[in-house]
């Protein structure tokens, strides 16, 4: 197993606020890494920097050995680095199936003209994509609602649509920004099962989450961020016993 993502002293400031101070850690191929920390620790900032929505001030990010410097979000996604958002973003005006199909965009091999003229190659690709989208929907348990307008689904199911959309193209690495936020207990448990299934499929996951139960249950390792710094790293059990972590969460 190699490193799939490597962060080297990544820093980011907003004006005078240092959101990230020299963050370094790496993700092993095929693991689920939990990233936790109190509010304002810099977790979302870190995900935004990795996915290219924000530019780091200092440091390097290597994805499968290649530097991501200067690549825009869509280029990073095309490399197989997918993410979800804390606040769900289903695409309005599209059905559940169409939303998931958008996730396959990076694997398109046909041109604009093939679709404009609806050449056989485009039709074949659409069919292939459609069956893969159905598989992803089956995985999150939404196959029956494929033709619904995505916006009309309840919150929890919209989050599943977004998840299906980002995993349908089998990305190498999936960054999940609080996927359990706003979900009830049963839905969170289902989510955990889905994430474990993704792991068995060989996907690497970086899970930013407030629900510590979920993190401790499914993560192989946990990184704890506080005030932009990594304060602890280790197995869920080690983290639970770590004094600095307890301090950061409970205060002292």
């Amino acid at each position: 197993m190699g490193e799939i993502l490597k962060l080297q002293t990544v820093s980011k400031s907003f004006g005078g606020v240092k959101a990230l101070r020299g963050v370094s850690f790496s993700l092993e191929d095929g693991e689920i890494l939990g990233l936790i920390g109190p509010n304002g620790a810099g977790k979302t900032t870190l995900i935004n920097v990795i996915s290219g929505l924000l530019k780091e001030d200092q440091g390097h990010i290597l994805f499968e050995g290649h530097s991501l410097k200067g690549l825009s979000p869509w280029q990073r996604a095309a490399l197989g680095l997918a993410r979800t958002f804390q606040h769900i973003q289903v695409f309005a005006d599209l059905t559940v199936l169409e939303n998931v199909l958008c996730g396959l965009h990076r694997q398109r091999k046909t041109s604009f003209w093939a679709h404009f003229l609806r050449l056989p190659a485009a039709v074949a690709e659409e069919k292939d994509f459609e069956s893969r989208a159905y598989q992803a929907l089956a995985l999150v348990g939404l196959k029956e609602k494929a033709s619904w307008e995505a916006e009309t689904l309840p919150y929890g199911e919209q989050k599943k649509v977004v998840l299906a959309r980002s995993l349908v193209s089998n990305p190498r690495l999936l960054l999940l920004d609080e996927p359990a936020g706003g979900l009830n207990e049963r839905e969170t448990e289902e989510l955990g099962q889905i994430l474990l299934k993704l792991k068995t499929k060989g996907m690497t996951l970086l899970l930013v989450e407030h629900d510590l139960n979920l993190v401790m249950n499914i993560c192989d390792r946990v990184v704890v961020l506080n005030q932009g710094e990594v304060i602890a790293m280790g197995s869920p059990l080690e983290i639970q016993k770590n004094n600095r972590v307890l301090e950061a969460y409970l205060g002292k």
Partner: protein
Amino acid sequence: MFARLQKDRRRLLGLALLIYILPFILHNPYYLTVLNLSALNILTVCGLTLLIGYAGQISLGHAGFWALGAYGSALLSLHTGWSPWITTLLALLGTIGLAALMGVTILRLRGNYLVMATLAFNLAVYFFLVEAEDLTGGPPGLPGIPPYKLGPLVLASDLAAYFLIWTVLLLILFLTFNLVHSSEGRALKALAASETAAACLGINPHWYKVLAFVLSAAYASLAGSFYAHYLSFISPKTFDIFFSVELVAMSLFGGRGSIWGAVLGAGTLTPLPHLLSFFDEYRDLIYGALLMGVLIFFPQGLMGLLERVLRSKSSGLKS
């Protein structure tokens, strides 16, 4: 997915039948002229819908592209004597090239800045047409533009132009439905919904904005060329910014984000002033009030209204 395309194709077939039967019922050439102008507006608004409703960008300069198609093809055919078919194609390619150049630069702008840039483009084209009198004929206009020919057939009459223009429009609508129900159309919709989320799926936002911009310019250019060779006379006044505003209004009136909305919007707003001529000086007032009424009370436009009516009807039947 395929079901939606099939549905739109069935509707399109219905429209085609209606269109090809209509001339046998309507004998007044004035009606045909209005229908021809409607078709050209539908073509342009259809492109604008790809830009506004799909890619989520706005343009107040599409009368400029219409002018490029009209003057480009008219001047080329007048000066070279080439067939209007060839000059139409050349004007189209020229417009595509210019729109691509413009798109790459100005689509980095957002919101109001983009509107201003497209507006400036339209003004630049307009003043060029007015000032470059030696080339364009200036404000009085450019007469004597040759019509399209099919072998020995000269397509100069309103009826011939009707079949020509509507056939081209139906064909382009067919292709546009292909597009919106493909991964290209989905990528554009995703972009309009959330640029960030779309980019994080590997959709290149800038590329798709430029694509929609170029396509909409191409549709407008085509409409312009057909307009010029059909009416045989053009003048700069037709291509001022008010026409651009009207086109955007048609797109919103019909329902942005829907190709059928474009058909409905341009298909009703183009003949409307002619129908309202009965009211004389109150015409513009009624036109404006209707436009505002629809936009205020039905932000989804005519298409949204129609869908709501159809939905409530079908649910009413079920209960």
